[in-house]
């Protein structure tokens, strides 16, 4: 009999084990038929439940339910949404950063030429920033205004990318055909000499950590995502 407990076998089936433990249990299973049987039972249970209820998700949503959401949209448009997660980094030594962002965003949103437009959908990347987010690969980038840090899928689905430029660094997520900024901090090489933020900035890493679903995309996955239009 094996000393591996039910919680560990279950966590294996749910993909919740760390790499070391996962390898250990899989190795143990090769010489322990009881253990491999327990693992298989857990795996099959998960598969059976998810297949069974997947049928519900594949059904056409009843019109009455859709209308509830769509009808509400027409009658009562949303108001007063806060487009950005400012609160998260409004502490610590961010006063200078806030000033800089105030100036930068104030300037760049003044016209079409800047990297960000502010609208009722939050802040949307445009111009060279949008182009970098659309096309640049973290694994292959030259001397461009923005560098891509990480590309990753967020919890709940959808692609996000961290970026770093002279004035701005941050995280943007794909919303339809656009990149919506989730977080903006001063970039790593702005003219005023601020060097407090980059895609390695702790605030950006914290945002990525909070949002990321799994692992950052590797070069192949990133390329495939770009090919698919970040859908």
């Amino acid at each position, binding site marked *: 009999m094996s000393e591996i407990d039910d919680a560990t076998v279950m966590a294996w089936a749910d993909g*919740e084990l760390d790499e070391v433990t996962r390898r250990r249990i899989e190795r143990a299973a090769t010489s322990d038929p009881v253990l491999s049987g327990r693992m298989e039972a857990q795996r099959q249970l998960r598969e*059976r439940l998810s297949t069974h209820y997947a049928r519900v998700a594949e059904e056409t949503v009843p019109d009455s339910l859709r209308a509830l959401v769509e009808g*509400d949209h027409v009658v009562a448009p949303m108001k007063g949404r806060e487009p950005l997660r400012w609160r998260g980094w409004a502490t610590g030594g961010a006063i200078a950063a806030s000033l800089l962002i105030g100036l930068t965003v104030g300037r760049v949103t003044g016209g079409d030429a800047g990297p960000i437009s502010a609208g009722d959908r939050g802040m949307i990347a445009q111009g060279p920033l949008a182009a970098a987010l659309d096309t640049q690969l973290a694994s292959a980038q030259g001397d461009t205004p923005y560098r891509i840090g990480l590309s990753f899928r967020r919890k709940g689905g959808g692609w996000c990318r961290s970026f770093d430029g002279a004035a701005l660094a941050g995280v943007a997520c794909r919303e339809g055909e656009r990149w919506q900024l989730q977080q903006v901090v001063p970039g790593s090489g702005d003219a005023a000499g601020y060097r407090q933020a980059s895609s390695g900035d702790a605030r950006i890493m914290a945002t990525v950590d909070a949002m990321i679903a799994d692992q950052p995309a590797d070069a192949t996955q990133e390329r495939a995502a770009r090919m698919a239009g970040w859908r």
Partner: protein
Amino acid sequence: MPFESDLLTLLPRLRRFAASLSHSRSDADDLCQAAVERALRSRDQWQPGTRLDSWMYRIMRNLWIDEGRSRQRAARTFAPAEAGEQVGYDGDRQIEAAVTLSDVDRAMASLPDEQREAIALVLVEGMSYKDAAAVLDIPMGTLTSRLVRGRGALIDMLGEAA
């Protein structure tokens, strides 16, 4: 509007979660509708940038716990008579055709709420333990012990060929 369009996108998953929590498809549809209504009423409480799916699961789960208990007691292995009574529900006929419960439905329905909701979030919705524990507002250790018990019971009920 992002909130509404995100919510529309989530509807299939919300119906699935409702189906895995409830004992019948008519209960599931009522639950889903009630959750969407509540979400639309209290959308100001949702913080953009946080997960809408987690927020919706939480609303639905709380509704089920708060309001579903009496109905749940009434429902066992047979679909309740109310399946055909939802006035104005245009999906009635399809739902009545689908109320025959499968082994999986019956096995899930026999679990205590606390185990079923944990199983539903992790095995059906594919959430991580961390996210599921956050939706249910319980420590990870509590979540995993409920999962272990619930899964053990399901494997026993559904047999080796699960």
